[in-house]
């Protein structure tokens, strides 16, 4: 069993779960904040995100809806990359999970992107963690200013 790592981004947003759910699951809406896609909110639906090609990878992210429970839980697979690419652009077999929970002042939105296998060693991963905590702080600050 290979060791995997995940990314979590979460925040309470001042909107209803239904409103946020629409933004997470409408093809047109997703294109506005994430990437061009052919998403449909149905378990088993296969779809793609398209981004810039990278080495031997064509830039297509292959996805399948794994769970769809409005307006609470959305999970899709997220695969791409190429074996021949080193590090960035290499083979990617991951899962993205969105969880919406009612919270004081709105809805708690939690995104977990899970299943990263690191090309480097664990030391590098641990070393960069404190830095990225600050990134989240600055993102929050910039968002508040905007």
């Amino acid at each position, binding site marked *: 069993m290979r060791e995997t790592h995940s990314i979590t981004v979460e925040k309470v*947003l001042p909107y209803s779960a239904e409103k946020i759910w629409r933004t997470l699951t409408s093809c047109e809406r997703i294109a506005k904040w994430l990437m061009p896609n052919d998403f449909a909110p149905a378990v088993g639906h296969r779809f793609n995100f398209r981004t810039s090609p990278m080495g031997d990878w064509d830039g297509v992210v292959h996805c399948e809806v794994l769970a769809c429970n409005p307006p609470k839980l959305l999970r899709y697979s997220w695969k791409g990359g190429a074996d021949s690419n080193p590090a960035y652009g290499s083979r990617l077999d991951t899962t993205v999970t969105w969880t919406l929970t009612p919270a004081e002042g709105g809805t708690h939105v939690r995104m977990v*992107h899970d299943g990263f296998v690191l090309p480097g060693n664990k030391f590098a991963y641990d070393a960069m963690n404190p*830095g990225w905590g600050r*990134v989240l702080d600055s993102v929050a600050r910039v968002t508040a200013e905007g």
Partner: protein
Amino acid sequence: MPGAAQLTSVVKMLADPTRRAVLERIAREGEIAATSLVKGSRVSQPAVSQHLRALRDAGLVMERREGRHIHYRVAPGGLDPLINWLGHYRTFWHQRFENLERLLKEDE
């Protein structure tokens, strides 16, 4: 790697020679106050502040406040978006999350 270049704000950050010089100076000094950065360069104070803000927002530098002074140092792993998927997607999701918030706000 043109694909990577288009995908990361880090590359955009480093494309500006003045900003890159600011980052390199911070890396060389270990930690440096914004005021000292201005003194040692031919760039104006507002310009330096703008570069520092951009570098901070891109996750390339960290700041520490001490009274009226702000000290800067290089954020560990800030260049990781260029190196691996995990680093790339950390930046990616934070940016997209901001897009999501902005879009929801626009709808009001």
